[in-house]
């Protein structure tokens, strides 16, 4: 269970203070697929950074399975990101000189898995996201956008995280591929019992998720939460 309480993050820009995330509270139960929608500049990405412990909030707390991650030290944060969180980015952000399988193995290496296990799991994950054997040794430059995002999804799942944070996962893809990627994420969330929070522009996609949060000027718009929460 992900529980966000009175979360606030403000930036100082010259003399003015901009509050990107302003007093947000919500909960997402395990295994749910939640989407965050909103105009650009509404604080979606900042919220995602805070949830992924990439950034520290000005105030408030984020509790994952009862543990407040805003109180963790740097070292524990690295471990948290490594073991509990999987990231999927709009620009895929694969390491360009590593092959697909090596990219998927990377987080497992940081988690301390032996090479044989890493390789085995990476291959099975890539198969799960629809990779054929001959594609696994390709570098990102030789893969299409959809294929790269599949690698990114496999990489996000590598350490069996509790929470997958996706920032516009379909933003760079055409609508057909975007839908396929979304369905893939949805299936995986169910089969691996992983909570997924995806920031998106695509209302059609947002409409299919279990929960949708609408952000407006850093605040959660009223009545945006629906579904089984």
């Amino acid at each position, binding site marked *: 269970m992900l529980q966000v309480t009175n979360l606030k993050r403000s930036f100082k820009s010259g003399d003015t203070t901009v509050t990107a995330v302003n007093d947000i509270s919500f909960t997402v139960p395990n295994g749910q697929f939640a989407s965050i929608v909103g105009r*650009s500049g509404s604080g979606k*990405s*900042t919220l*995602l*950074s805070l949830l*992924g412990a*990439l*950034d520290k909030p000005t105030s408030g707390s984020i509790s994952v399975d009862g543990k407040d991650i805003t109180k963790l030290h740097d*070292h524990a944060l*690295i*471990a948290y*990101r*490594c*073991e509990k969180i999987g*990231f999927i*980015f*709009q*620009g895929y*952000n694969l*390491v*360009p*000189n*590593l092959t697909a399988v090596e990219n998927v193995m*990377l*987080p497992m*290496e*940081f*988690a*301390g*898995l*032996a*090479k044989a296990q890493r390789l085995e799991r990476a291959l099975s994950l890539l198969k799960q996201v629809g990779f054929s054997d001959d594609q696994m040794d390709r570098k990102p430059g030789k893969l299409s956008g959809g294929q790269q995002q599949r690698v990114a999804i496999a*990489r996000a799942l590598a*350490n069996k995280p509790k929470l997958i944070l996706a*920032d516009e996962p379909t933003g760079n893809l055409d609508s057909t591929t975007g839908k396929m990627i979304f369905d893939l994420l949805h299936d995986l969330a169910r089969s691996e019992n992983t909570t997924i929070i995806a920031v998106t522009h695509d209302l059609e996609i947002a409409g299919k998720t279990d929960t949708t949060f609408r952000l407006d000027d850093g605040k959660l718009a009223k009545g945006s939460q629906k579904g089984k929460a």
Partner: protein
Amino acid sequence: MMAATLIKKELIMNVLTRGIRNAFRNVIRTFSLVVILGLSVGLSLAMLVAYQAVGKKIDSVKSSVGNTVSVSPAGVRGFEGGGNALTETQLMSVSKLAHVSSVTETLSDRLTTSNTNLVSAVEAGSLGQRNAGNSGQSFSFQGGGMPPGGAGDTIGNSNSTGTVTRTFTPPVTVVGTTNPSASAQGGTFTLKSGKTFASDSSDNVALLGTSLAAKNNLTVGSTFTAYGTTITVAGIFDSGSTFGNNQLIMPLKTVQTLSAQAGAITSATVNVDSITNVESVTTAAKKALGTAADVTNAAAQAETTIAPLENIQTISLYSLIGAVAAGAIIILLTMIMIVRERRREIGVLKAIGASNLKIMYQFMAEAITLTLLGSVVGIVIGVVAGNPITKLLVNNSTNSTTTQMGMRAGRSFERGAGRGFGGLQNSVTNIHGAVGWSIILYGLAAAIIIALVGSALASFFIAKIRPAEVMRAE
């Protein structure tokens, strides 16, 4: 337990392999960087080679000059000039100076047909005949002492009006000394037969140069007359020079007594305990003897020879530092550039659970790979260019002084000080620089230090990159 260490080892290996692979991500950049680094490392090595070769040469020049100080009466060079002889009392004060290990005292005199039955082994020749012209109108003979200007009594002189015809027979030089083996003119002293005499001897004995002995049919044990006294041949020596082999070496006391110059010294060689003290002993001796003596040392002359070498050494040292610094700056800037270029990737690595340290190791491995590649190129350049560069540097800056010094050395008539100067001059330019294993190891060690220093600042930037950067829209 075993598995855990294996995994750990494996993990480190991965960070390293990624770093090494990253070094080849941009082939054109890697190639250019390796070439530039190679030039800088190669120049460093060449300069190190030059520095060492020149340093070695300076040491050998210094030690070949020897640690002696020459003392002669003021105004006298050999038999030229004038002035008064030094006294044993005066030299006693020199031998008591600090750092003086011993003093060789000599009294030179010339034997002519008037006071010896020895015949010179050297013919007058055209150079000798010059002495016939300038020999001593203004001198007058004084009781058994030195005949004027070395002209013998074969000078068919006279005060009669009309043409003066003079012929000249070279005199036999006699050296009275406290150290016979150091007193032969010509650099070396090899006793061919017989034995030498003690330094404080006052016996009527003599060592003869080989040609002088041969000319006069003398062997060890034979006798001849000098100063109206019968002298026994104690030994025969070879000095390695025609002039030296025409010499007669006798105990100092004997010459002083026989030539009626008691206590007189015409030259002395002061041996100093260490080359570094030559200058201070020279100064002290000058102070002790005042205006009575000319005190010189070869170190001052060697200094002139060494000066251009020392300039080269300084130049090569600065070039070395400059080249190493340039290499360090190149790798430093490149690493900063690479880190800035891969901000997003570093952010991703941090986001998916890499620690700052692991990312730093990866970049260090990359920097070391690049630097080592540059070093290999640099070592090749250094091996090829080291010796030519050294020779070029040395030849260009010593040519002018060599001629100058050669002249000066040639003019020097002093025993000891001037000895072997020609050889010294030749050897100054005979410098060989070579890249040895130790230099290559130094080079590699320096390269790794440069790489570590270069990536240290880059690591600072790595640590500062916040993983949230990845979330920024492109």
